[in-house]
């Protein structure tokens, strides 16, 4: 898929996100919008996958884990638009009897999801386990994990960081959504992460940085990340994003981390986001 088409997908996904969240007056639009470009590139360019024949084990395929499960809207939209499940199902988000739970769940077998997430800090460990299983199975595909930057305040992340480097889990490509914001404010103010790049490097990870809104750079960075695999080190990508990207009033603040737009705000957001693939 070319960049222009992927940009159309990302725009549609941003529309899906604000519409899904507004429809139930709950959910997390900020981080979802910020990661729309990343998710689009991953699912249309980077991940080796078979959406129509989803299996839990994903043998011979790349696996993707979302640790910061609250940005489920961007994942659900991306999965639906990549043919994992029917696009109209996005209308069930956060509603009773839906497969699209507030935070990702496998309870109703939603294709594309392999483990629950939402309680933060667990996804990197889940990914390491899956990566170790791939090694035992002599499966040479990769395991990808996305975490939030605020999530790195969880101690378990650093247990996992130690493990992956010490045990040479080198089929693992982790990403931090480095938007600098969390519910209570800027990460810097809530609990500073200090020099994050140096921290991951000191833990023994190959550490890359990329502008999370430049699709060409995202592609190049993950291709580089793949080339760094198999050399005894796990790979970390610090994905610099803007929370709320694409909707002017949602950027430059932490306030849209977990708040839904009202009808007027929704209209304003949709006016800024081109409908490219047809709304659900």
């Amino acid at each position: 898929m070319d960049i222009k088409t992927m940009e159309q997908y990302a725009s549609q996904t941003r529309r899906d996100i604000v519409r899904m969240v507004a429809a139930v007056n709950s959910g997390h639009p900020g981080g979802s919008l910020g990661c729309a470009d990343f998710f689009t590139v991953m699912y249309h360019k980077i991940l080796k996958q078979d959406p129509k024949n989803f299996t839990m084990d994903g043998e011979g395929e790349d696996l993707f884990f979302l640790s910061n499960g609250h940005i489920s809207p961007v994942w659900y939209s991306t999965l639906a638009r990549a043919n994992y499940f029917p696009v109209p199902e996005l209308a069930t988000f956060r509603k009773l009897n839906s497969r699209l739970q507030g935070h990702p769940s496998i309870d109703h077998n939603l294709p594309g999801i392999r483990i629950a997430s939402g309680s933060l800090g667990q996804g990197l460990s889940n990914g390491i386990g899956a990566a170790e299983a791939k090694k035992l199975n002599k499966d040479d595909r990769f395991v990808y994990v996305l975490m939030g930057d605020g999530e790195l305040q969880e101690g378990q992340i650093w247990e996992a960081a130690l493990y992956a480097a010490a045990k040479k889990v080198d089929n693992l490509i982790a990403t931090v959504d480095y938007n600098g914001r969390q519910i209570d404010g800027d990460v810097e103010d809530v609990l500073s992460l200090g020099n994050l790049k140096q921290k991951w490097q000191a833990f023994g990870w190959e550490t890359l940085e990329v502008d999370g809104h430049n699709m060409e750079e995202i592609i190049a960075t993950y291709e580089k990340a793949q080339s760094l695999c198999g050399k005894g080190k796990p790979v970390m990508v610090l994905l610099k994003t803007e929370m709320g990207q694409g909707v002017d009033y949602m950027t430059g603040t932490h306030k849209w981390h977990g708040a839904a737009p009202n009808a007027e705000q929704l209209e304003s957001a949709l006016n800024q986001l081109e409908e490219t693939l047809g709304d659900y």
Partner: protein
Amino acid sequence: MEKKIKILGEKDTRSGFGEGLHELGKSHPNVVALCADLTGSLKMNAFEDDFSDRFFQVGISEANMISMAAGMTIGGKIPFTGTFANFSTGRVYDQIRQSVAYSKKNVKICASHAGLTLGEDGATHQILEDIGMMKMMPNMTVIVPADFNQTKQATKAIADLEGPVYLRFGRPKVPIFVADDAEFVIGKADTIFEGKDVSIIACGHMVYKAIEAAQELAKEGINAEVINMHTIKPLDIKAILATAKKTGCVVTAEEHMINGGLGDSVAQVLSMNNPTPQEYVGVDDTFGESGTPDELMTKYNIDTADVIKAAKKVIARKK
């Protein structure tokens, strides 16, 4: 009313786990083991030595271990995690809840040094709430085997059960009375002694205490039925109702808090189906302390004498 039982020796239940796991290494190529720096205590060395590519030393990082184990099931592995019961449950409740139980992952959480019989290390390590925590978790099977042989058999049996399991065992050497060729059926209680006067339903180390109590009671003309309720969840409701109907009164015995343990599960079954007088032998809403296992069992009222006392009390209540 002869209450005889064949004692086959004396060993710790954790060694039963270690042997069972080692045998699984040979029979089940998808079984992997993870340990958080307690390989010797959990008796996992034999597995580590012979199946080193399938043994994962995670260091003192229990949260990472549980979530990693959940991840390893994706790809068809059957992970057995090993650490003390306290660190297998309370420390990692949320990891088990989200990554294992809610996500229906085929992880076997194997927990040693449960209860007071951990002994001298004291209350920080003597978890007495783990059965309650684990049985409350949807999708979780909870098994508390009684001796070395049964722990070995249970370890092997859970490998073939699809889904999350909590397997609880302990540190001290205790008499072996389950036959080494016995079949372990998850969810099906073992009747050790038939009786008509009182039912003693026990799990784990308390099964042997119940056997001793029944033998003492027999000398006084009291015929106790002893049931080894090794599976707390799913509970053998049929066995509970049958024995309660037969004897008319029940004693439950466990090395665990009275709150939330086996006794509570039994009481729920009885109150809903056939209200029956019941006495609890368990730890009564208190932490433990340092001491030898025997001293602690006595001080915290979970010894043979306490089972006998409870049996007499509950028999009196049914009249």
